[in-house]
């Protein structure tokens, strides 16, 4: 697949790689467009470039323009001008197809197996769930891709992450990836692509596979990857940009031919057992600082020497005692959304917890669909009313409180239960704010209880023996 996209050898030993799908958004594209203009260049393949707006948009009354924040307004209008000028399709606010870039490209059928996908955003690894080579790039590379539809790239090694068994009830793809990162660390993936395979992965839906690949980057791996299979093809069939009729048959034949061989050699391989994984929560300031919900915050002497300095920093920043339980820790804000967990199945899993219950007193809980399409589909199922009745706010699509570039932010030392992907210091908008990463169902449960709670205790009826989620 790599070889098919190879254009030339570059000085310094890298490869010039053709980019089949270039996704852009308002944050990392403006400087790239201005650099293009400075160099007197144009966009090489506007038809292979797709834009949306997600990071800076408010999630309340988002179609009221200009935005209250003049910087946000400037970023969006710059994107609008650039798209108009170069003939790039923009999925703008209210278009019916706007949303977080990593949510909309798959749901529009733009992301397909065997493609190269690049975007000025590290969570581009998400698209590897389709069996594409997908990676995040810096702004100078966004400029390169705009100018030449290609970029200079070094070939990655591949680590296969083989997962046996099946996830138990109340345990989701988010828990699986938090567990993998917790086990391998945040740097282990540097120089690698993470290929997820095995019975547990085969059993995952496309949306779950996207959650998994989304966070490959949090383990240091620039790409996530899952072999395309029947689940992939079923997901794609009938989507707006998916091939139809004869072309569909040809596509499926080609996609099927790309599957990596069961016995292929990998640069490295690790094994996990899905059945042994519990709902997982981060307690610290890196995504690798995670524990099962029924475990306690690790003590210093249980950690390797290299992990200790960051653990000590995390105890201080999070204000957590080593050895204390994470279950029962009070939270202030509960956020369900992001490119990790803002898809319909995520909202449904959270809704199953919220149904017939109510958010605890004093807790701010809100649900932010990943795209306009997700929002409409959820509303068609009545999820908006269900959440509202349970005391959650129902918002408009965007990155929201995943990061601090729009009005949704933590305040002071507030602590959030969040279905997003990064718990770095200050990530959610307050320089002293604290983040606990977990699955959307776990966030919904935290909102109900007002504290970190094992979602399995709320799923007792659904988790009877023999019943899977």
């Amino acid at each position, binding site marked *: 697949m790599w070889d098919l996209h190879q254009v030339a050898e570059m*000085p310094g030993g890298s490869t010039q790689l053709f980019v089949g799908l270039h996704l852009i958004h308002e944050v990392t594209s403006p400087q790239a467009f201005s650099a293009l203009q400075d160099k007197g260049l144009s966009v090489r393949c506007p038809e292979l470039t797709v834009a949306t707006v997600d990071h800076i948009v408010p999630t309340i009354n988002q179609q009221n323009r200009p935005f209250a924040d003049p910087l946000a307004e400037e970023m969006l209008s710059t994107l609008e001008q650039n798209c108009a000028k170069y003939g790039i399709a923009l999925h703008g606010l209210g278009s019916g197809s706007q949303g977080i870039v990593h949510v909309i490209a798959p749901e529009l*059928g733009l992301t397909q197996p065997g493609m190269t996908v690049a975007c000025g955003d590290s969570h581009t690894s998400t698209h590897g769930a389709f069996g594409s080579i997908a990676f995040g790039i810096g702004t*100078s590379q966004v400029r390169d891709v705009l100018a030449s539809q290609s*970029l200079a790239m070094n070939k990655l090694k591949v680590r296969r992450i083989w997962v046996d068994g099946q996830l138990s009830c109340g345990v989701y793809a988010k828990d699986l990836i938090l567990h993998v990162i917790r086990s391998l660390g945040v740097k282990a993936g*540097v120089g690698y692509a993470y290929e997820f395979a095995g019975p547990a992965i085969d059993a995952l839906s496309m949306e779950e596979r996207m959650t998994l690949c989304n966070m490959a980057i949090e383990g240091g791996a620039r790409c996530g990857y899952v072999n395309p299979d029947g689940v992939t093809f079923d997901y794609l069939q009938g989507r707006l940009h998916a091939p139809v009729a004869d*072309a569909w048959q040809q*596509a499926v034949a080609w996609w099927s031919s790309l599957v990596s061989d069961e016995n292929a050699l990998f640069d490295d391989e690790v094994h996990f057992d899905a059945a042994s994984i519990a709902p997982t929560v981060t307690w610290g300031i890196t995504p690798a600082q995670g524990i099962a919900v029924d475990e306690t915050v690790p003590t210093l002497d249980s950690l390797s020497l290299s992990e200790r300095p960051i653990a000590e920093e995390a105890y201080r920043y999070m204000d957590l005692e080593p050895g204390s339980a994470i279950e029962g820790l009070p939270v202030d804000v509960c956020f369900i959304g992001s490119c990790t967990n803002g898809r319909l199945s995520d909202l449904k899993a959270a809704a199953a917890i919220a149904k017939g219950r109510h958010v605890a007193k004093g807790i701010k809980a809100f649900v932010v669909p990943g795209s306009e399409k997700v929002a409409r589909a959820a509303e068609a199922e009545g999820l908006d009313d269900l959440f509202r009745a349970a005391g959650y706010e129902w918002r408009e699509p965007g990155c929201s409180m995943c990061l601090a570039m729009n009005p949704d932010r933590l305040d002071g030392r507030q602590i959030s239960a969040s279905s997003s992907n990064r718990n770095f210091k200050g990530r959610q908008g307050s320089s002293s704010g604290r983040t606990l990463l977990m699955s959307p169902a776990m966030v919904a449960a935290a909102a109900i209880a007002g504290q970190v709670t094992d979602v399995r205790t709320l799923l007792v009826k659904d988790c009877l023996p023999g019943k899977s989620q």
Partner: protein
Amino acid sequence: MTEIAFFPQGVIDQVSGRALMLHGDDIDTDRIIPARFLKCVSFEALGNQVFEDDRLELGGSHPFDLPVYQGASILIVNGNFGCGSSREHAPQALMRWGIRALIGESFAEIFYGNCLALGIPCATGSADQIEALQESVAAEPSLSWSLNIQSQQFQSSIGSWDLQVDSGPREMLLSGRWDATSQLLEHDAALKSAMAALPYLNNFVASVP
């Protein structure tokens, strides 16, 4: 400092100027340029915002604020400098402050690549060498230094150090071929044939534009 004309161009075989240093391993891109400054449509203001939070904390005694280091162009750091996010804002901020070369024990991969794409060499040396260099700079901030890319030597009137500049990047700097965009554009014919061979652009094109 924000004059485009003074940014690196063409063949880069030598970087000369005064030096300054920052101590500590794992200085991440969030420290180099805090996330709130990413909300911008051009890189221009970044030169003033570089290390903003660290500088505020030190109230004027940060090396980037000390009068003796104003106008310095070579930054000496310790290990894993530039780790964290892929934001090009980090090297852009350093470049716009005036940095034209970095010397350190090691650099984060993406940061290193982003620097190279701007024509900023990152040379590496052993922990002992770096420490000695940092001491020399602190003792005599007014010294002039020069980093020779070909010989990989870093020298001043007080001595010379053998450093490393990886062979790939070295070749790119010396030939002036570090600017990826123009290289990529040179291969448009090869690009066209790659495109002509890709099934998804030809045999089963997407149904609707």
